[in-house]
């Protein structure tokens, strides 16, 4: 019995390590390149690791574009987006999944339907709308929509709610709790893992979104990181090392944040015992 256990464990680690290598190699490649001059990057035979760390690329990132400013702008937009997404999507998903009322099926289908029309043909109409509101070149077009739910998350939380037994809500009802209380006190803790996913995804969508900031903002000092990153990519001239350094700087906070956030993937249903 014991030997089989060890065998299984070794197998698990083997798979994990192989998977980790495949995931890591492109990233390591990125970081490696960020410390190299463009000339060295293309030498044959390939130079796998730079002999001397070249920090100039990182300095260039900040001198060639106002990268620090882009950072601050992006964080500002991202924070509101996460708050908006967590509140609105949980509310909507609960309403659709748990409360029986006429029209909820239709509303659910409508919201899923919004995922199916490609986003890029809708950009110009959205621009027109924000222009009518007089909000072009402000952060509002990048923030406000997050407070109105996103079908991607609504559908996800809806599916997660389907895995949670209804006994929990019912018990609370008997105690006379109202819906907002049930959502905040019972559903939210049970859905912690899913909510972390919402936060991470919303963070990434906003962090990496290029087209909407480019369209809705006019002033360079309001641009976000994703737009700033594109300054280093062009058909005619791409400073590879600087681009790689900028990319590394862009994803670094994401890595740290994810490492912290994944700890919240603890079993949400240890209370499951109640059900018995």
């Amino acid at each position, binding site marked *: 019995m014991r030997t089989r256990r060890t065998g299984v464990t070794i197998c698990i680690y083997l798979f994990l390590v192989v998977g980790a290598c495949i995931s890591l190699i492109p990233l390591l490649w990125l970081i490696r390149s960020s410390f190299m001059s463009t000339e060295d990057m293309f030498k044959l035979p390939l130079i796998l690791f730079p002999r001397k760390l070249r920090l100039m690329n990182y300095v260039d990132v900040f001198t060639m574009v106002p990268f620090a400013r882009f950072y601050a702008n992006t964080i500002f937009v991202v924070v509101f987006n996460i708050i908006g997404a967590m509140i609105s999507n949980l509310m909507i998903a609960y309403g659709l999944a748990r409360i029986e009322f006429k029209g909820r099926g239709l509303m659910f289908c409508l919201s899923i339907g919004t995922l199916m029309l490609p986003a890029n043909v809708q950009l110009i109409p959205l621009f027109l709308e924000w222009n009518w509101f007089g909000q072009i070149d402000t952060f509002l077009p990048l923030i406000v929509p997050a407070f109105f739910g996103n079908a991607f998350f609504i559908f996800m939380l809806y599916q997660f709610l389907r895995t949670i037994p209804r006994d929990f809500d019912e018990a609370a009802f008997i105690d006379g709790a109202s819906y907002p209380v049930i959502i905040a006190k019972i559903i939210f803790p049970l859905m912690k893992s899913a909510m972390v996913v919402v936060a991470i995804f919303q963070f990434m969508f906003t962090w990496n979104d290029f087209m909407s900031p480019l*369209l809705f903002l006019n002033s360079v000092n309001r641009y976000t990181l994703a737009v700033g990153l594109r300054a280093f990519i*062009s058909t005619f001239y791409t400073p590879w090392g600087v681009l790689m350094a900028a990319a590394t700087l862009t994803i670094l906070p994401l890595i740290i944040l994810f490492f912290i956030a994944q700890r919240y993937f603890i079993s949400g249903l240890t209370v499951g015992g109640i059900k018995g």
Partner: protein
Amino acid sequence: MKNRVVLFISILILIGAGLCFANGQKAASSDQVKLTYIYWGSPAEDAAVKQALAGFEAANPTIKVEPMYLPGDLDGSTYNAKMKALAVSNTLPDVGYFRPEEFGNYAENGYFLKLDDLIARDGMGDAYLPQTWLKIKGDTYGAYSAAECQVMWYNKKVLRDAGVPTPPTDYKNAWNWDQFVSYLKMITIDTKGKHPGDSGFNGKDIARYGVSYDLWSAMYYPSVWSNGGDIIGLDGKTVLVDKPETIEAFQNLADLMNVHQVMPHVTGGTNISPTTMLANGQLGFYVTGQWTLLELGAMKDLDFGVAALPIMKKPAQLYVSGVNVVFNSTKHPEEAWALQKWMMDPAKTLDLYTSGLWMPTKKSYYTDPSDIAKWLENDVHPEGFKEAVVDSMAISINEPIKIKNINQIWGDYLNPAIESIWIGDKTASQALKEAAGKIRNSGLLQGSY
């Protein structure tokens, strides 16, 4: 723990809010005229444009210019998307860069200010290269921002090592194609030092290539024209891409990769970084746009030269660039024109020219020795640049951007056909004849603007 998270978030929000307010405080005083200047480009171009705009503000204290910079110009489509959003919402800027392929359509729909009277008033018409002014049905609506063309760089050390003589710089007396190919074979070696044609030459492991051509639409014209061919007639109704001369030109280029094995295969339509390969001595020649000089000039260790483009049948050169326009919706046409004129004057944006990014559109910078010295005499421009590149602008022909649907003809039909030649799936004759037939039936040949 929870408190700390809340504290952290509130600090972030405060920082952000502070930034927003900081942004808000820059209302111009009421007697000032405010212009918006829209443009694309690399960070270096951005810096040079900002400097020129600041110079303009200093010279015209009553005018304030707001730069609207769009980075990330991969194929111009994001710039076009933004432009369209601005046009359809009536919020176009006053002056700025414009994508050449969209020029005709916007001009025809009245989005640009007609410049003829202003040009005549200020006596500018003859001061600039005749190719510079962009006319639609006889009226001028814009000007090329710069004069850009195709050039051939080479790594001097590679040529010396390979025993290739110094290439001619006179664009009228350049190497002919066969000479060129034979030199390329001398340069190309595999990892064991063998040349193409030697027994045991390994085409899969090449250490040094003879040449790399940039392979995208505008860059085909000089070769095609040099062989006496063409792509689409200027009337926008005749397809010339299946002319034997055109076919031969494309086959010549494809043979560099597939037959002579002196040119690297392209990945995803482009080679990753030929400038770097040139600098590393992995490449003898690099045929590309003259703007790459900005990048090469900054590589201090690279000893590079410029050669006249090889001639298939006759010398040919291309005139290509972004466009500069004044938008018709501007409330201050006089000031906007003044800004346009400022940006067209090489003396005001000299950095863009000395760094190698652009070539001037003003005539005196091609004829007057003191003006020539201003932009050519520096560490960046290699010896022979004047004879090989600057002088060749005399025979340059504009990229045909006024043909209707030309973008779609390239995108849907020509590019795929040409790709199939590059990857060796079809011969130029098969691919281009097939494409020509499809274009004729596509309904896209609707004349020109």
